[in-house]
């Protein structure tokens, strides 16, 4: 296991995993408490269209994917704010169209030997240093924005109606939250892939929720759990020669089962604030 850490790609992979864990803990918490897992899934699949576009036009991965993911987030925000009861159907359409457009754009790219699998299941072991810097920048931005707007995000997530009465710009915060989800999804896809991004955004926060007395505490615990799953999944996949993204998710799922068991064995333990 020690020799694994002496390899540069492994060090990059661990760093990428920790960055993604930070983002998943913070943004995944907002996704879970606002009950917008389906919407986050829609943004992720629309981002796949962005991957296709980036490959087709020869753009860098981050530019194309982030652009399309942000556009999808903006469209979903507009629909959700104007016609909430139609939102899930529209999200479903964007979800499917994004995915299909990505596949077709890759088909249309001349001579492109499809690297489909790496975007479906992630390629944490092949993150170059330059991309690591981009990921760090996106992660820092996401965390800084959430920290700066924390009271507003808390008020919006807990009771949007009351927040509006108190003059909190709820609609603007909602749009901002979807944009942050888009940015996060793009870098998380890099590590665990499109199929598994939702798992990493939801499993750690869901476990953390019942053990946390505050939204901030839930974010911290979810990030820590996510780091635990990512690092142990990565090392396990190295030791057993398995696909890293899928192994990470199975480790997270095992943690999820363990947490459920814990709650069953020790029910009603009072949760302290924090």
């Amino acid at each position, binding site marked *: 296991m020690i020799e694994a850490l002496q390899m540069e790609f492994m060090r990059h992979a661990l760093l990428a995993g920790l960055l993604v864990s930070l983002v998943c803990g913070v943004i995944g918490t907002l996704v879970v408490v606002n009950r917008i897992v389906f919407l986050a899934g829609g943004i992720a699949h629309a981002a796949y269209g962005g991957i296709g576009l980036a490959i087709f036009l020869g753009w860098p991965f981050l530019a194309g994917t982030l652009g399309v993911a942000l556009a999808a987030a903006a469209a979903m925000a507009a629909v959700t704010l104007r016609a909430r009861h139609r939102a899930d159907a529209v999200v479903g359409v964007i979800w499917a169209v994004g995915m299909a457009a990505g596949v077709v754009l890759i088909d249309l790219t001349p001579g492109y030997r499809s690297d489909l699998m790496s975007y479906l299941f992630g390629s944490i072991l092949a993150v170059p240093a330059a991309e690591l810097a981009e990921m760090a920048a996106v992660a820092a931005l996401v965390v800084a924005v959430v920290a700066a707007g924390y009271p*507003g995000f808390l008020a919006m997530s*807990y009771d949007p109606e009351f927040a509006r*009465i108190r*003059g909190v710009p709820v609609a603007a915060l909602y749009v901002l939250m979807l944009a942050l989800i888009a940015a996060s999804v793009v870098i998380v896809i890099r590590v665990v892939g499109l199929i598994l991004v939702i798992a990493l955004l939801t499993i750690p926060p869901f476990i953390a929720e019942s053990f946390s*007395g505050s939204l901030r505490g839930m974010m911290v615990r979810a990030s820590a759990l996510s780091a635990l799953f990512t690092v142990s999944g990565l090392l396990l996949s190295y030791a057993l020669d398995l696909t890293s993204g899928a192994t990470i998710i199975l480790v997270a799922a095992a943690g999820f089962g363990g947490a459920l068991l814990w709650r069953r064995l020790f029910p009603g333990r009072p*949760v302290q604030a924090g």
Partner: protein
Amino acid sequence: MEPEPQSPETVIEVRGLGFSFDGHPVLEEVNLRVRRGDFLVLIGPNGGGKTTLLKLILGLLPPGRGEIVVLGTSPRRAARRVGYVPQNVHVNRSFPISVHDVVRLGSLGAGGRFFRRSPTAEAAVRAAMEEMGVWELRRKRIGQLSGGQLQRVFIARALVSRPEILLLDEAMASIDAQGRAEFYDLLAELNRSATIVAVTHDTMMLSPRVKSVACVNRRLHHHDAGEITPELLEAAYRCPVDLVAHGIPHRVFEMHRED
């Protein structure tokens, strides 16, 4: 119509209000005037538009027709001077938030600043919590409270900003019969500094503490009275109510009496 010199100022004025949801009229031709210091109870059946009327007064919904003036300005601008206790206090009970932080939300936007934890704001939060007897519960997670405790926490949240008007939506719903008399005493106490408008679907909820009653069922029937008389209560209970069923334009509630 100019207010008489002796009567207190109008704090809520609703004129010719109409509101439809998806083409279905929820409120029609509603006129209502609430004076400062009033304790008004809005009664009416479920689906009669009571909650919608409160949300219009709070500026959460735009009026389809007519005009609403709250504290001399638009509902949206007045909203920060209005305290609101929502109907459904049981949503989001699994949310990781302490009782203290829920009440702190009541100081959002105070003084034009956006949620700065100033000593003044913290003192206002504590005062509201002590007034409602929930200060001891502050470290608990919101999901650990009983219905009655939750109700008090949400009223404390509304009181933090010392509102001039307090709007309560079905506030008595989660309080048992025994607690209701006590709850009305509490509202009467709050009524010394704030105008109160409370909504309920249960006509048995009325109390001698109430100063006036209006029935909302698409239209509004206001029974204004300066003092509580048996006639007022009787009039309130026999208030004509349009039931939701079509083709029966006017039905009358059964007469109820409080013990």
